[in-house]
């Protein structure tokens, strides 16, 4: 392998593709979207606040007092701590008048059969959303619990009954360590890696898509024959994989920087705090799977790209690989509940699905070390195999212009000298 030629190819691929209109548009799309959002925000800032307030009024129970008509006696008189928020009315008509006058936001009609049925008629003006929201309101719930239990139980018990649980999730791993401090940190442990993995998988496809394009174009324009008379196919392949891998990284860096710039670093900091709660092992393995995944996919895209006679045909052939890589995402619903389910473990040992599958499983749960070692071994073995097959297909496929080789012919190529 002549590394100087690999470098020449890599630099050429990078420099020509970085100037492509498609690449520039794709790369600029994220910052441009950011600018649009910022402009939109600045322009509509005032209106937005009013708009927000309007929606809040529609959905929030709000702080306006709520009228109460009590036929059970449990709520009369209203306990002192609720007197500012709840107003007792003697009868239905009186309460309705107060509601129409806007003195109260809604009226709770607690009938005689309340204790047996729990039935409460809620009267409100407007859409009725407010009435529905009342049943979920912590304030209303506390009002009922407190009045029902007042004087009958210990105040601490009464308070607990009003708010029975405040969840703080923790995940226990085999080492006995726990992770996830409080609700937000816990959510980030799942969400951030999920999106980081998605992001990285995107770049694998962006880069290997460019690779496919570059091979197909060289073949379509016939320049390939001059190129392979100057460099060995394996050097050409290595140069393309390297150059376009860096191109993909360029895109991620531009996107990340723009996100960081537009949000004053907030989003990235958030990502960093999220990432900080991911064990270093997961991050390190993520990088390993990213690299292995890219190299494997890139080599296969190059080999397949060489087989098609036109760009379109090559893309169709390569679609098969994209499908395999997407399989773990199709299973993500199941993966969230059980990251170590059998099908996930099986797919982790299959080279085409292993990178994406492992990147998704790792942040979700403690993945058995057998799976980690096994999937890395499978990838490490598939890469030279793919390189061998890819270089052969490349060498022969590149020179077949008029028709795509049949499966039988491909078999012949692989058996023969090529």
């Amino acid at each position, binding site marked *: 392998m002549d590394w100087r030629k690999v470098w020449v*190819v890599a630099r050429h691929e990078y420099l020509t593709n970085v100037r492509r209109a498609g690449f520039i548009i794709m790369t600029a799309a994220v910052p441009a979207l950011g600018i649009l959002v910022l402009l939109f925000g600045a322009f509509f800032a005032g209106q937005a606040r009013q708009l927000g307030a309007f929606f809040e009024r529609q959905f929030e129970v709000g702080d306006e007092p709520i009228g109460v008509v009590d036929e059970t006696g449990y709520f009369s008189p209203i306990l002192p701590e609720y007197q500012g928020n709840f107003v007792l009315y003697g009868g239905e008509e009186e309460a309705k008048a107060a509601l129409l006058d806007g003195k109260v936001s809604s009226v709770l009609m607690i009938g005689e059969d309340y204790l047996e049925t729990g039935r409460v008629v809620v009267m409100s003006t407007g859409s009725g959303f407010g009435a529905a929201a009342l049943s979920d309101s912590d304030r209303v719930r506390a009002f009922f619990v407190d009045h029902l239990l007042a004087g009958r139980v210990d105040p601490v018990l009464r308070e607990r009954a009003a708010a029975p649980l405040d969840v703080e999730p923790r995940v226990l791993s085999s080492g006995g360590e726990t992770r996830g401090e409080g609700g937000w940190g816990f959510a980030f442990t799942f969400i951030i890696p999920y999106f980081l993995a998605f992001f990285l998988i995107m770049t694998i496809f962006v880069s290997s898509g460019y690779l496919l394009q570059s091979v197909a174009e060289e073949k379509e*324009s*016939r320049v390939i024959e*001059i190129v392979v*008379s100057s460099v*060995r196919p394996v050097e050409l392949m290595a140069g393309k994989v390297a150059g376009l891998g860096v191109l993909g990284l360029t895109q991620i860096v531009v996107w990340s920087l723009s996100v960081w710039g537009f949000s004053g670093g907030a989003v990235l900091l958030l990502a960093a705090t999220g990432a900080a709660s991911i064990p270093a092992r997961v991050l390190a393995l993520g990088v390993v799977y990213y690299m292995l995944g890219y190299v494997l996919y890139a080599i296969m895209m190059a080999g397949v790209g060489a087989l098609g006679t036109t760009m379109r045909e090559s893309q169709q052939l390569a679609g098969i690989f994209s499908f395999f890589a997407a399989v773990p995402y199709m299973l993500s619903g199941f993966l969230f509940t059980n990251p170590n389910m059998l099908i996930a473990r099986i797919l982790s040992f299959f080279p085409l699905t292993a990178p994406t599958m492992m990147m998704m499983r790792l942040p979700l749960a403690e993945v058995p070390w057998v799976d980690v070692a096994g999937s890395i071994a499978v990838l490490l073995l598939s890469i030279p195999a793919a390189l061998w097959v890819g270089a052969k297909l490349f060498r022969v496929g590149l020179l077949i212009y008029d028709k795509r080789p049949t499966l039988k012919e491909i078999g012949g190529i692989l058996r*023969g000298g090529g």
Partner: protein
Amino acid sequence: MVIQVQDLMKRYGDVVAVDGLSFEVERGEMFGLLGPNGAGKTTTIRVIMDIIRPDEGRVMVLGQPPGQAKAQVGYLPEERGLYRNLKVLDTLVYLAELKGVPRPTARERAMHLLERVELEEWASRKVKDLSRGMQQRLQFVASLVHDPEILFLDEPFQGLDPVNVERIKDLMAELHREGKTIVLSTHQMNLVEALCDRILLIDEGQVVLYGPLAEIKRQYAPHAVRVRAPHIPLDLPGVVGVEPDDGAFNLALAEGARPQEVLRALLDRRVEIQAFEVAPVPLEDIFVAAVSGEEAGGRRQEEGEDGLA
């Protein structure tokens, strides 16, 4: 000897593309590689260029295996094209760099060659902006931008207008004078006759004719003379047949008869001779004859095929 090919064999599945081919190309010569479509020319060239590997046989380029001589060999493939969206100069520089030429040297040589084919003003334009003829010229110089010792030209005149054919021919002649070895593969026999020193004619992957062009033509020459005159007496000594041909006559000679004797006999009879020549045989006829197994230009020497192959 700059190229040595010995018992070269290449199969594609059941099809034998090259079947035990042996030949040599000498330093500084213009060598014609001829053959009908599908004869195995391009396969042979691709093996010498290390684009494909032979199944059997030995190929040496400048005393090295093909893979190690890439920097000294230039190639203009039959199936050709360039990076359409790349600038003219960048294209040449990249292709030179792939051959191992350092960037600054590559730029210098590329500019020099662009001047030579009158494309220097297009250096910073994209390839796709060039006309067809310009692209062909660019393609041609792309094969010599790394200053190779040996140049393979596969159908260099394909699709060129007469003006550009002349341009490329002149450039080839110039390169030949500079001492470059040129292997020319083409179907245009008139150009082979005009340019090549030696030829190799192959068919179905095997050698049909191989040797100096002049010698081959002599061996294939019919035993006849061509005379342009108002009439030809029918009883000339040593003449066994007279055939009118495009305003002239082809006179087939008897075995042992010499053209000079026929000329003397014509003069003795006071025939008004406008032209007299030993009947030539166009390379095209030799090509067709050799490939189809028919006789070239009327009569063919018995030992022709065997003696030369």
